[in-house]
């Protein structure tokens, strides 16, 4: 049968050829384009926010108190946010990442990321944090409309930022011009 010939005689050549093509192609074509998962990028943003936002000194219990990034609801970052923040500090404040379910646990948080899933709705979180010195971050264009400080919006497969400066002022946060430059400002 023709397939027998194929199976028993051709493989040697066939496989050697395929292996050669599969191995040589990477060299020929060169570098693959980098891509990252959506929440890896968002985790990196959260880390950067700790550097480009200034909190009033009263928001820290002491000079050595940690700068706390909290997630309310389910953690969409996997281990990425923990890994990025590990061993990092902003001035004298070590970064700390916590995951919470209850609004009452958010006291002492400097950044609160409001997860889409398995948590109180964003409006409730924002109402609870109103007047507190907290950088609120969430997903979607409506997050800043609801009074959140920074919103992540997906545009053309990229993560873009929206900043509500009124909310930032109310929370007594100073947002660096570098961060404002890459963000869309909404009110």
């Amino acid at each position, binding site marked *: *049968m023709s*397939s*027998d010939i*194929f*199976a*028993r005689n051709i*493989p*040697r050549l066939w*496989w*050697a050829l395929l*292996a050669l*093509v*599969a*191995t*040589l*192609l*990477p*060299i020929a*074509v060169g*570098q*693959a*384009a*980098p*891509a*990252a*998962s*959506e*929440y*890896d*990028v968002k*985790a*990196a*943003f959260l*880390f*950067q926010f700790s550097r*480009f936002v200034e909190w009033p000194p009263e928001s820290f219990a002491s000079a050595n108190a940690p700068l706390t990034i909290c997630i309310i*609801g*389910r953690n*969409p970052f996997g*281990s*990425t946010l*923990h*890994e*990025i923040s590990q061993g*990092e500090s902003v001035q004298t404040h070590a970064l700390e990442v916590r*995951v919470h*379910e209850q609004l009452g646990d958010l006291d002492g948080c400097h950044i609160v990321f409001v997860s*889409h*899933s*398995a948590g*109180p*709705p964003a409006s409730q979180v924002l109402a609870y944090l109103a007047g507190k010195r907290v950088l609120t971050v969430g997903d979607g264009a409506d997050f800043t409309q609801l009074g959140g400080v920074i919103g992540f919006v*997906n545009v*053309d*497969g*990229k*993560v873009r*930022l929206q900043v509500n400066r009124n909310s930032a002022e109310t929370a007594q946060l100073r947002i660096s011009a570098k*961060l404002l430059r*890459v963000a869309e400002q909404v009110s």
Partner: protein
Amino acid sequence: MKGTQFNRAAPESDFACHASSWIVALLLYLYAGTASAELSSRALKALTLEELTNLEVTSVSRKEESVFKAAAAITVVTNEDIRRSGATSVPEALRFVPEIHVARRDSSSWAVSSRGFSSINSEKLLVLSDTRSIYTPLYSGVFWSVQDYLLQDVDRIEVIRGPGAALWGSNAVNGVINISTRRAQDTQGLYSEALLGSEERSAGVRFGGTTAGEVSYRFFGKHSDRDSSATPSSITQDDWRMSHAGFRADWEASTADAWTVQGDAYYGNVGQLSPSIAVGGRPGPTGDLEAEVSGGNVLARWRRTLDATSDIQVRAYYDRTHRDDQSFRDDLDTFDVDLQHRFAPASNQELIWGVAYRLTYNQNIGKGIFAVSPNESTDSLISAFVQDQISLSEPLQLTLGTKFEHNDFSGFEYQPNVRLSWELSPRHLLWSAIARAVRVPTRLERDIDIDVNPGANPMYRLEGNEDFESEELQAYEGGYRWQAADKFALDLTAFYNRYKGLASLEIGDPYIAADGRTVIPIINENLNKGRSTGAGLTATLVPLRAWRLIANYSYIDMNIERGGVDLNNNRFIAEATPRHQFGLRSLLDISDRWQLDAQWRHHAAIRLVADRISAYSELDVRAAWRATPAMEISVVGQNLLHDEHPEFGSPRTRGEIERSVYLKFAYGI
């Protein structure tokens, strides 16, 4: 590998001969891997704000959220799950989904079933690939061997256990398997893999790019070659080869419009241990049995986002399959168009409705004893569905839906369901559902035409039955999900199913043929009925950030009663699914570069009418090394606990699954 002593030695010596060329290949690989396709956390935090805003991202979390809240028994097998399982085919990737029974009958065929009724046909399970049905209407089932994907580009496999007919339509009786490939945006750049193993070898390449007009695309190709299983009692062999190539393009024409066009084609030779069709008392085809298979499809989809809560989608495809073996030659052409619209009629409601039309043209030319009559058949299917998801209160969601369809086999069908989910807290969810679903008659059940003892008087004739109706399911199911922080998660489901009008082979009313002989027809009737109860459990424990343990357990108790003679012992299908199945997976990240994964499974004994297959346990182990950020080298040992073991089929038709090992290079991961 081959059955006889002589043949068994051959591939191994082949393997040894090739070792030297593969060492050269390995060295080339080590040189090649310099590019970075995935960013480590170290790289991520080094990115500036500008760089972050310009980075292309892939979206992976949205589905997880919907899975937690879904009022259905749903499990998502992700791309990473597939890779870390070491699976090299879709059925193998489904082995650790609770309530799913995967049993490999021989090298190229699998019995994949959900909630019972295990058989090679898997007729009560609907399988879709990027929304295209890959379920054959000839005899209801999936030829798994031709679904030979480049698994790296499979985004996920959604497995819904229980009826999904209200959304997906007929034959989604006991489950739906939805294979989704990645968007072209997410498969940019070069990926290549080569796999060299004691039982199989394969190589695959994909290249993805983006045109100036912002159209993302990819092209891919794969060839695989699998050895025969262990067949001590058979002279035939089931080794097989498959070649597969295709493309996908995604284009976001505007912020509101998204287009997808994709297509692929395959060709293969599949060795068979026994003929596709065997009739008791009639000699079947002999000699080296082999099916020549080929097929292809093109699919286009357009989606327009109307506003935040509404969109409209139109999808059409054409699919062609060809199969030629010693029992028949079968050609099937399918054209399918589907429209659906989602909107919010009120602030607490989301409504989806849709209409679809499918036209199939089948030509089946029997060889030897086998025939269907008529040879050619054109059949159409018209369907409409509507589903309304209503938030009764913040934690309480009610889903009402139904599908109506008209098909040329059983006429009008309705398949409604009611689902309720109750979010006790953000981490606890209870759900329940009641549904009706049907399995429509197949072409064989309607049109088969075989003389069992030609020339004799009276003559028995296996005949199609125009009056054969759909098999019906009334299903009751419920579940509980618990996500305890990030360390522990639990997913528990239970079901009670009642089946009416299950197929059984019966003796019809005798008649006098034109030549004066008496013909006793043997026909399919809907005389069996049955019930099943069962449960599925998945528990995920994360003792360390780098270590995940996933346990699953499935229980099924099934009983089918005959209402007639049940000549072909269809009632015994109740015993073809193991009553108990256990699985345990351990996924360990030893370091950034090393992964060590193991998976162990146990299946209770099953019985296929007269043939018993003993309980067995098996173990797979995978070690992977990230040689460079873009390149992974892995070694996988499969079925390590036995030299060979049977999983399904009678001693005459089955091949035993052998212990195997493979080495895989993947670049561009």
